[in-house]
């Protein structure tokens, strides 16, 4: 289009003068045709017909505009949709058409696709969050600026950190068989630790999720599943989350547990709102009530920012949700649990800094 300048100019002119086509179309009958008619003696029906029809249409149009008609003042005064909606006693019936998500996912090539889980009509939709948990507000307002300040490392302008050697080492080409061989692992062990980047405003460690896990050793002992049911309901009560059950991966002969046969463990994964509610409840109400509790052991953690500690059944019974109807749970069946606090910190040191700021005490030798 741009390559043809004349076309381009005409197009722009047309945009500037919208009435040009109209003026051309209106008096089609009276305007002499551009084509010299003398050379072409042949006439078509289509030459004349549209012009005639157009003029007919224009003569049928009303001359008076509807915009000029005046609205009576009473109609304007009575138009109040808000008051009408408020005065309505019953709700209006819902729209005739309501989308229902398909019950089954039939694969990516099926024409009837379920909506994404974030869509309210999806069957997987989970509404929320409905509240701003206190622990989350504490983190946002207090803890995260503190951590950023504490972890700040000043480097003068123009500072360049010394180059680090690659973590995976090259092979020295002493042997022809080193060609295309995969790189060597790091010195001192095969494990590649997470890389810790300097903590800036955009990677302040925060709590990612909390896992409550409970291994019920009596789950298979008495040939009834009541231990697992009680454990699952207790964990659900303290966590607000439906639990998953897991089968044992190994045989445990003294407890009568066979691999891949017996469901022995329950787990609840907490994210977001549930996670912060649980953390606040744990720190403020439950942990202080544990008798002679020193805190979380300082050597706990998987050295990549996840800290685990355990609660024995007597401590789990201290949760207010279990206390409120303590009689519902058979006392000997209340489970202990392991609570793992997954953080986005890359090292346990940062995770401990975060968690101690959130109110979890640590004791003993602090490792890493």
């Amino acid at each position, binding site marked *: 289009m741009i390559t043809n300048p004349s076309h381009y100019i005409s197009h722009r002119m047309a945009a500037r003068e919208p009435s040009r086509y109209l003026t051309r179309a209106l008096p089609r009958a009276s305007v002499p045709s551009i084509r010299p008619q003398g050379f072409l003696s042949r006439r078509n029906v289509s030459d004349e017909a549209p012009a005639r029809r157009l003029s007919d249409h224009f003569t049928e149009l009303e001359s008076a505009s509807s915009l000029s008609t005046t609205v009576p003042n009473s109609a304007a005064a009575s138009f109040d949709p808000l008051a009408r909606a408020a005065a309505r006693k019953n709700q209006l019936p819902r729209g005739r058409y309501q989308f229902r998500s398909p019950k089954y996912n039939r694969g990516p090539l099926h024409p009837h696709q379920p909506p994404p889980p974030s869509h309210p009509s999806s069957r997987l939709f989970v509404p929320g969050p409905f509240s701003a948990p206190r622990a989350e507000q504490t983190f946002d307002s207090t803890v995260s600026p503190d951590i950023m300040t504490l972890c700040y490392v000043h480097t003068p302008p123009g500072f360049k950190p010394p180059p680090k050697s690659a973590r995976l080492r090259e092979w020295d080409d002493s042997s022809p068989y080193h060609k295309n061989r995969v790189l060597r692992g790091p010195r001192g062990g095969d494990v590649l630790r997470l890389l810790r980047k300097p903590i800036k405003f955009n990677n302040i460690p925060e709590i990612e999720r909390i896992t409550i896990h409970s291994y019920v050793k009596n789950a298979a002992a008495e040939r009834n599943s009541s231990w697992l049911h009680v454990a699952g309901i207790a964990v659900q009560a303290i966590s*607000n989350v439906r639990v998953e059950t897991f089968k044992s991966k190994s045989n445990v002969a003294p407890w009568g547990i066979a691999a891949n046969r017996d469901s022995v463990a329950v787990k609840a994964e907490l994210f977001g709102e549930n996670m912060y509610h649980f953390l606040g409840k744990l720190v403020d*109400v439950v942990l202080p009530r544990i008798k002679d509790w020193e805190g979380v052991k300082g050597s706990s953690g998987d050295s990549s920012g996840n800290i685990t500690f355990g609660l024995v059944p007597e401590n789990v019974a201290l949760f207010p949700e279990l206390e409120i109807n303590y009689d519902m749970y058979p006392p000997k069946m209340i489970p202990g649990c392991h609570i793992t606090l997954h953080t986005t910190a890359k090292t346990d040191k940062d995770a401990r800094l975060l968690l101690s700021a959130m109110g979890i005490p640590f004791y003993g030798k602090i490792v890493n």
Partner: protein
Amino acid sequence: MSMHTSLRRTAATITNSTTTILPTRLPTQSSGTTFVCSQCRHATLLRRPKRPYTFTQLITLSDGSTFTHRTTSPAPIYRSTRDTRNSLLWNPSSSKLMNVEEDEAGRLAAFRARFGRSFDASAPVVETEAAKDPVAAKQAEADAKAQAKADQEEEDNLLDLISAFGQNEAPPPPEKKTPKFTGKK
């Protein structure tokens, strides 16, 4: 989700591995490729997530501060008696929460200073506190000494008062504080 996990593999793979070594192969024999089924023919049920019903609960901590949280417990208010506000682990510097005997008037210390036996006269303060906080122990010791001294002075004043009774119009002396021997708390 399970669509990706349940990729079926057709059983068209070669079973005999010896033939792969041979350069020439029969044309009818299938090659070693596995045919991964790209389309899954079964349907996966989209289960609605189960969520336990939660209530909003007001938690009142022991110092009166409150906050709300969502919980499965139906009680609208939870009053805690033991929480971060009054446990020693979260308030390590709070002398109120430490296991210290209340001796504001110094009476116990005065009693010990006067009638204490060897086992508690030598250490007028509780051993646990002395072991924990030497500064507080020293302070308490100083208090005890000052109290004993004050008592002694008071007694002297009283003797003076008796001897000097009626000689001049002195204002009435302050009330005598007799240490009550209530024993150890």
